[in-house]
């Protein structure tokens, strides 16, 4: 029995895991200005060079939650390899979030005459090393 225990402690075990995670959600509804129109300077702001930019236009919100953003989805892959001995475990983990680099919408804003979309997370790789003893 003692011999079997010693033989077991001397063995090195290697484990590897591959996992995938896919998230999907339909696009959420937001309130987005659809139109804009000519504005006038507010009282006594004519001739002021400090606030001229917001004289030009006013935006119009036709209704609440009038726009549905594109569907939200991304795929995450990860591969983990662990090497275990009697007294320690070494684990390497490689993962790739948002594998196909989908730029899911977070919010929109207007810059000049162009509407812009901001996304939070593009493709993100990560590597981790864990040592347990």
């Amino acid at each position, binding site marked *: 029995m003692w011999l079997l225990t010693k033989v077991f402690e001397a063995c090195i075990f290697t484990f590897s895991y591959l996992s995938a995670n896919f998230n999907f959600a339909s696009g959420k509804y937001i309130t987005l200005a659809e139109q*804009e129109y*000519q504005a*006038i300077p507010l009282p006594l702001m004519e001739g002021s060079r400090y606030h001229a930019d917001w004289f030009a236009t006013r935006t119009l919100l036709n209704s609440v939650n009038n726009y549905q953003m594109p569907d939200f989805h991304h795929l995450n892959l990860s591969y983990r390899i662990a090497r275990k001995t009697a007294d320690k475990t070494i684990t390497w983990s490689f993962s790739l979030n948002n594998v196909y680099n989908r730029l899911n919408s977070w919010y929109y804003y207007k810059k000049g005459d*162009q509407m812009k*979309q901001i996304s939070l997370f593009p*493709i993100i*790789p990560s590597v981790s090393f864990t040592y347990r003893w």
Partner: protein
Amino acid sequence: MRRNYLFILIIIFGETLLPSCEKDVTFDFDRPVKLSLNCILNPDSTITARLTLSGNIENNTSFQPVDDATIVLYENGIELGTLTSGSEGNYYLDYHPESQNEYKIAVLHPDYKDVTASTEVPQKPDVMFTPDTLELIEHPELYWLEINVVIHDLPGKNSYWLYGKRTMDGVVRTGGGFQNIKAPFIDDFNRRTDPESKFGYVYDYYVRISDIGYDGEKMTVMLEAATNGSINIVSADEHYDKYIKSSVKARLNSEGDLPFKEPVQIYSNIENGYGIFGACAITTIKL
């Protein structure tokens, strides 16, 4: 073999540097174009109006002016005249509107629905003020004053907008709000905390005073200002008052760091169109 793994890792990490989190987008909003009328009546000036067409949010050009419309103005139900078309959508009528009169405007154009709106011109604010010199500011040389402004409110619903203006080195500097101002009837919608100011808060762009609870009474506002400027008290009718307040709210929303805020709808009293038809009367205190 190790070089291959290293090469793959470099490719993956390098790919993360290329994509940007911001991109251009387009929308397929299909809203009908409407007339946009902007006209503010003031007893101290002749009547001017600006007429343009609305545009989509991805408007890449300036708003198209409308020069071939017929704009008719009515005073207390009686036709006053037709505004003369200038250029770039500007219309004029050589007439000074009178306080406490009701005005209605009608815009007629064959391609769009008739646009109408009405307003009442308020009276000029009855204001007295008492300045008290606090200190001399040497660079530039001017005096810092504490001013008690007393507004004799007229019976009925009134709202007033305080606005500062000063000229330094030939440059007109406007707005910015008020730092050292105190009164119990100031609307706090544009107030923000500022520990460095005298009372711990400042008002951005304008100070709005409402006579709710003080109808027909004398309202005293204590503020501080320099001697190279003026304080303007604008008495706005209810439509123009709502327009200014919603515009300032929308402006304050756009200045913040966070993109997620409750949207602000700009007020409009134009039927079948956009814009504003309002009235105001201004009293200026020169310091």
